[in-house]
């Protein structure tokens, strides 16, 4: 059990509060904030996993996840703005 694996477990546990906020809200805006935070933690979890497992391909996965979480968060915020207009 290396320090990287311990950090990975810690990061995965940190996703639980974000999931709680996404599910419980109370509003969609709160869920959006929780989603964005969870996405960023997921990116960091992939980076740490790449180092823990010595798999450089996971870095590419983290880059793609970072870009996609930005795009999805942007689209969701834009959609929410228009939906409530």
């Amino acid at each position, binding site marked *: 059990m290396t320090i*990287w694996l311990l*950090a990975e477990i810690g990061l995965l546990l940190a996703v639980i509060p974000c999931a709680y906020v996404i599910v419980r809200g109370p509003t969609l805006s709160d869920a959006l904030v929780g989603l964005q935070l969870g996405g960023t933690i997921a990116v960091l979890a992939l980076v740490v996993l790449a180092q823990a497992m010595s798999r450089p391909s996971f870095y590419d996965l983290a880059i793609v996840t*970072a870009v996609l979480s930005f795009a999805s968060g*942007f689209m969701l915020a834009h959609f929410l703005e228009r939906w409530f207009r």
Partner: protein
Amino acid sequence: MNHPVLVSVLLAAAILVIYAACLGLLLVRGAAARLHYLGPVTLLSPGLVSLAIIVQEGLSQAGRKAIFITCVLLLEGPIMAHIIGRAIHSISQQEQRTSHREGNSNSGKRE
């Protein structure tokens, strides 16, 4: 270069920042207030994790990719905070308008 103690300290600091942000996310009420906790996670934690990788691996391919991911998150964080903040503001304004309209129509019925 390999300094396991320094790597552990950097990783522990990154995890602590994330846990503090998650605690804030749970305890604080209101989407606009919760938005503030995105900042440390997108700015501090990726930098600390990348620094830990660079200390362990040096400026190898892993180190350079970690720096790139940190730059992506550094750029993306403030932009997303602005976009989400604008959406929250727009939604709250619309909700105020709707409740104001309902208040006016109710007062009309009373008369």
